[in-house]
């Protein structure tokens, strides 16, 4: 059972026995240098030292957010340069990223942040771009590289019929790159609610033999949509999806309860431990099945 490293939470949470591995977003331990460095990311040593002290001997996996692996104009090379140094100082068991893009070329050719991750269209061009990059990353770090299925709100993206939809997109990418899947069940749930499909049928179509990690999280209703907010407890329907998925995704190595830094203290350590306990219970029952 995994949990993100959140500096604001009490250290004892990570030593309570509820957490078997920790998920670290290395960008949160970095600062961006601007002047003349092309946005280089610099690891802040004292933040890393504190994280390592809190996490102790727990195995660590990386969950990045800044790579923008799907940006056609180029991914964030500064992120990978930083990750090279990060791996040398704190080795990770595997490495994951979100399938999507969050930068575009500006009018002057420089990279512009969109401010929110956007979905890739399910096209052959997107498959080729991300699959080749994923394979390159797997070679670069010599640990499994996982792509996470995203939540998205925009319907009617351009698509190639042979790819179809978001599930077809990630399946085709993983097939071409021989990569691994981080199956975010809350994202499947969000998309099912917002776009009106059956989440269990979507899971049946996902490449479950490639699942290495599963995410569960909470969200909330907003403006007629179910929002992927990572802001609280896991909805019952997502627990049902976990029960359904675990026996079918036989290579799953861990399940992470995701919550954002800003909501974690409000949710509290007790509730977090309770959610992790529920994951452990399902894991024990359904893996045995």
């Amino acid at each position: 059972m995994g949990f993100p490293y959140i500096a604001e939470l009490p250290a004892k949470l990570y030593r309570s026995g509820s957490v078997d591995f920790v998920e670290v977003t290395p960008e949160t331990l970095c600062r961006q240098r601007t002047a003349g460095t092309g946005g280089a990311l610099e690891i802040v040593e004292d933040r890393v030292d504190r994280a390592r002290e809190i996490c102790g001997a727990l195995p660590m996996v990386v969950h990045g957010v800044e790579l923008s692996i799907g940006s056609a104009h180029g991914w964030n090379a500064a992120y990978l340069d930083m990750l090279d140094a990060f791996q040398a100082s704190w080795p990770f068991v595997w490495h994951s990223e979100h399938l999507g893009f969050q930068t575009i070329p500006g009018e002057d050719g420089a990279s512009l942040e969109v401010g929110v991750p956007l979905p890739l269209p399910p096209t052959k061009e997107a498959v080729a771009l991300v699959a080749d990059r994923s394979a390159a990353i797997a070679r670069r770090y010599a640990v499994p590289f996982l792509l996470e299925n995203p939540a998205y709100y925009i319907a009617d993206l351009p698509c190639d019929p042979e790819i179809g939809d978001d599930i077809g997109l990630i399946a085709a990418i993983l097939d071409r790159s021989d990569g691994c899947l981080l199956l975010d069940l809350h994202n499947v749930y969000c998309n099912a609610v917002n776009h009106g499909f059956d989440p269990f049928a979507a899971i049946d179509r996902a490449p479950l033999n490639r699942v290495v990690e599963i995410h569960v999280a909470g969200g909330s209703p907003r403006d007629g949509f179910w929002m992927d907010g990572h802001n609280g407890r896991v909805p019952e329907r997502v627990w049902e999806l976990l029960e359904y998925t675990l026996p079918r995704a036989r290579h799953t190595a861990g399940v992470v309860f995701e919550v954002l830094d800003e909501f974690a203290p409000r949710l509290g350590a007790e509730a977090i431990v309770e959610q992790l306990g529920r994951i452990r219970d399902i894991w024990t029952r359904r893996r045995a099945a």
Partner: protein
Amino acid sequence: MRLLDFQTALGRLVRAPDGGDPLRTLDLGADDRSRLEALAESPGFRFTVGVQRSWCIRRAANAGYMTLSILPDNLRRRLLDEWTNSGGGTSSFFATEAEALLDFIADRLPHPSHELTACRLEQAALRANEIAARFRAPDLDRLDNARCVVRRGRYAAIVLFYGEPDLILGALLEHRPHPPVLAETTAVLFGPGLDRLYRPASGSEVTLWKRLTAPVAIPVLRREGYRRDVIETMLRAGAVEYA
């Protein structure tokens, strides 16, 4: 439609959905353009824009917390709207966002004003704090080298208060009537090598700081009468650094 064109168009639409014609410089056919225009009218797109705006405003509000908190509500809201409408609030990196946002706000505040002083103070404190934990005083023997050149410290600043600093800050933070903006100023030096990151600046330090708008060789400074002990003190504070 090529992936690059689609992403550029979608990204621009999300960043500035109401700002003129974000697609104007893209080489799009009529079909692609009408498809994107229809997409931009969809509920899912509008929701995505709402999420983007809320994230950008949250990042900006965190990055300029003190300055924004002392401004009147209507001015704070207008500045945040202008900032996010111009593409601000998109950086996930706090220091990057804070530096740019506080420059943006400073450009829109009256000069001189206590609010501008507070804005520059927040920027100076964040900048000095960013490297304070790993700051090491430089080797002062390098000053003996005839080719030694110094410049302003990149993580330092001198902030001018137009009146008594404690009175001004107290009034701003507690939303009390502001003291008058006086012609006489008090200079406060911020640097990563200072104990609490700041202290009052001496007249000699202010003069040296003003001189270093560009890098200057030490022999030139000495010929102009700048004292070595002042240069050394500012080097130790991180207010001056070797170029």
